[in-house]
């Protein structure tokens, strides 16, 4: 199965700009389906971006983050060719992880 995370990281002038798109339903627990049953909450709780084993960004998400969440952040101290690890875990214990190379 393809990874649920799509990442693009670009280094420019010492600052790395990272854009990540995760495929996830992000159900809030407030929405009902067509039969009137509440769709249980199912959302990503924590997403981390690590560079050389150190977290450079940690997102703590609640159910109010949109479906298929998008995140952009910027950090210093990385260079072109470095590898980043992006991982998430949701409220049902599912998780995924991917690596990306800074361009």
């Amino acid at each position, binding site marked *: *199965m393809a990874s649920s995370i799509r990442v693009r990281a670009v280094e420019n002038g010492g600052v790395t700009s990272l854009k990540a798109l995760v495929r996830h339903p992000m159900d809030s627990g407030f929405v009902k389906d067509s039969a009137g049953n509440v769709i249980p909450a199912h959302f990503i709780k924590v997403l981390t971006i690590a560079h050389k084993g150190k977290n450079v960004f940690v997102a*703590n998400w609640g159910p*109010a983050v949109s479906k298929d969440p998008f995140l952009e*952040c910027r950090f210093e101290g990385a260079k072109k060719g470095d590898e980043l690890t992006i991982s998430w875990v949701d409220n049902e214990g599912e998780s*995924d*992880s991917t690596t990306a190379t800074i361009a």
Partner: protein
Amino acid sequence: MTDQRRRGFLKGMLGAGVAGFALGSGIVPLRVEAATAPDASDWPDKAFKTPGVDDTIAELYGMEASESDKITMDLPTIAQNGAVVPVTVETSLPNVTGIALLVAKNPNALAAYFDVPEGTLPFVSNRLKMAETTDVVAVVISDGKAYKATQNVKVTVGGCGG
């Protein structure tokens, strides 16, 4: 396409599918996940279940936030679709360690908060759901103090209903 070529094509697809499945269920990705799955045990359940902006800030950071004009928020003033509202926050405040996004009229105000370690710029862009026309509040922790900025978004179609 001749029938024979079609057979070959299908066979190839099947092979690729099996290989993909083997990879997906195999040892390699599992090991990666086990090694890097983030720890959600610190996730602040209570803060994410608190209605009201000020109460949530108090619950999350244990302090009150003062208004600041050094926080730049970039978001639409009118959102056609409340399910996807792009919100960007940037600040010129020094020594930022955290950024939080709150939606005042959502059932639970806190939408997301971000840990900003040293070396990471105080910038974040995220997409949020909001139920109705509401204030969006950005909270920035700078030098251990909390600052906030507010902007109103007019939502024409809510993002939390069915």
